[in-house]
């Protein structure tokens, strides 16, 4: 079926709630209102208030409560209304969920959905891409779909995983991206995907930047540029990254997140460490500078990686 990215996530939640009694949702405004973006619209009606729980503004309770329910056998999917608010639940994610199995051999199979990303004039508190915080904390997994099909598949795979999984759903893609999505439950593996093939340079990215990079590559007449969609940030698909770096010898990494210690920094270090012998040029990163995301469209456009900036970086590195 043809679904938008948002509809695919909804459909994934619906499949999960139908297939498994242990699944329930917690979050702010997800029930009666159907969610700030309408991702959970209709679910309260279909499944009732014991499966779709509206909580007070209590991010620590949402996450920690999910952990508590999970360790006695439930499979909760919780939501932070905007990824930016994950900072209010940070302690439960990093200190409780992340460290639980290592310390106590107790698994916390929870999913935390974070509507992330900019380009909507959301300003500093509604535009963040905070995924790097969670790669840095042990015991967590992080995924970031760029297509409708992957959005549903990665969500269901995250649910099946016995570990805490953070699901970065890009709000800019909710209605902008549409695709063919299989009916019923299926899982997408936590692996990278080659979006298009090429031999002279590889662009490595994820989330909304996959679409920006694809547009930039389209504008290069006939250049042989590969595009790799990471899809899974933790675990990083090191094999796919290194294979692409070795085969193409030139790498451009695009981060919508702030430059310093974004995922691209880890990917860059990995390539420099393990594929140095195959590089024919420096690893180039195109990233948002280390600023809070500004609200005015002119300012926001100036900081987020644009198609032009990505294309310029590719062009320059190709010619190097």
């Amino acid at each position: 079926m043809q679904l938008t990215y948002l509809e695919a996530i909804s459909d994934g939640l619906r499949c999960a709630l139908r297939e498994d009694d242990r699944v329930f949702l917690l979050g702010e405004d997800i029930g009666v209102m159907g969610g700030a973006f309408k991702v959970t619209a209709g679910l309260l009606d279909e499944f009732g208030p014991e499966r779709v729980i509206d909580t007070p503004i209590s991010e620590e309770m949402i996450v920690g409560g999910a952990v508590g329910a999970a360790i006695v056998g439930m499979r909760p999917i919780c939501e932070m209304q905007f990824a930016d608010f994950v900072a209010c639940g940070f302690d439960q994610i990093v200190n409780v969920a992340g460290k639980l199995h290592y310390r106590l051999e107790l698994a916390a199979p929870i999913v935390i959905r974070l509507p992330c990303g900019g380009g909507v004039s959301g300003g500093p508190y509604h535009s963040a891409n905070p995924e790097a915080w969670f790669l840095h904390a042990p015991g967590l997994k992080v995924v970031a779909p760029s297509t409708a099909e992957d959005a549903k598949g990665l969500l269901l795979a995250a649910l099946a995983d016995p570990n805490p999984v953070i699901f970065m759903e890009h709000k800019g893609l909710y209605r902008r991206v549409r695709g063919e999505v299989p009916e019923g439950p299926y899982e997408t593996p936590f692996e990278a995907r080659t979006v298009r093939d090429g031999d002279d340079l590889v662009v490595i990215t994820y989330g909304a930047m996959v679409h920006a990079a694809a547009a930039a590559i389209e504008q290069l007449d006939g250049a042989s540029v590969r595009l790799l969609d990471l899809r899974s940030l933790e675990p990083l698909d090191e094999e796919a990254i290194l294979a692409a770096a070795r085969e193409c010898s030139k790498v451009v990494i695009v981060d919508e997140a702030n430059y310093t210690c974004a995922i691209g920094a880890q990917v860059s270090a990995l390539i420099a460490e393990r594929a140095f012998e195959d590089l024919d040029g420096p690893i180039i990163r195109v990233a948002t500078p280390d600023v809070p995301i500004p609200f005015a469209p002119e300012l926001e456009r100036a900081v987020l990686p644009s198609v032009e900036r990505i294309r310029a970086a590719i062009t320059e590195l190709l010619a190097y």
Partner: protein
Amino acid sequence: MSTLPTTGAAEGTREGPYLELPDRVSLYRFMALQRAVEERGLSLYKQGRVPGSYYDGRGQEATCVGATYALNAADTVCPLIRDMGAHLVRGTTPLAILAHYLGRAGGVGRGRDGNVHLGEASRGVVGMTSMLADMVVVAAGMALAFKLRGEPRCSLAFFGDGATSVGDWHEAVNFAAIERLPLILVLELNGYAYSTPSAAQFPVHPLARATAYGIHGEPVDGNDVEAVFEVTRQARERALAGEGPTLIAAKTMRMHGHGAHDDARYVPAELLAKWEARDPLARQRGRLVELGVDVAAIDAAVAEEVAAAAQAALAMPAPDAASATVGVYAASEPTPLGRGEAPWSGFCS
């Protein structure tokens, strides 16, 4: 939703007092065991054999033993710093605890975490973090699951004055109150959070916190193990009846410093002397002696058990260094929390 537990015919229908003689002896024995284990641990720490820091709950044994004694096998418990007795009631052995302090492979924490950060998941005990209100949230989450599934189970969280100032505490209690979750909140009013006296922790009487959240609040003499048991038993009944959380404010005293590294010079000597006279073990011992129980024999058995455990723990191997990076992630279908021991005679197990 059922108000009667699925295990045990007698529970909840009996008239008081709810403790048989064996229970009263048991309560004493668990407290004596906690004190003996913690004294032994402190001694090992002072000998330099326990790495890191060392914490104990001297003087607070009645609160954690009495409260945990009221829990059934399927209930879950989140002990905090002073609550080693809770672990012992649920069935964790002195050997496992001492080996844990020593950081041995066979200790509860397997060397991954130390001192009071332990909890045997197989016995329904969730080990604490250092963020002192974290586990109140987790306990509320467990209670949420029990309610959603209509199970006659409750969860209990221990915490001190300090934890009630952390944001997490309020998020948990607020949510548990709104949802009327089967949660038992045991506030150990032990006078000090590290060096902060209770007066600087509460702008209102602690039980006003219960009123503020619209939940039942119950004060209790935290050094009377039988009183603590009774108050908790009622709280559990209330929880299973769908009446929501109870905040039990147990008045007691932290007799040692925050940890072995803290000489607690900020605690007035008179205060300690006053509470020494109210020692919870002495209180219960007095009752048993009056009932003709050979307490000395219990003490001797406890001493022997802990001595043997210490010796065995010291002989256990350290964890394999190669295992340090293993087990960050769960690899397979997770095992939920298990069932602990429920020694109260009021439960048929």
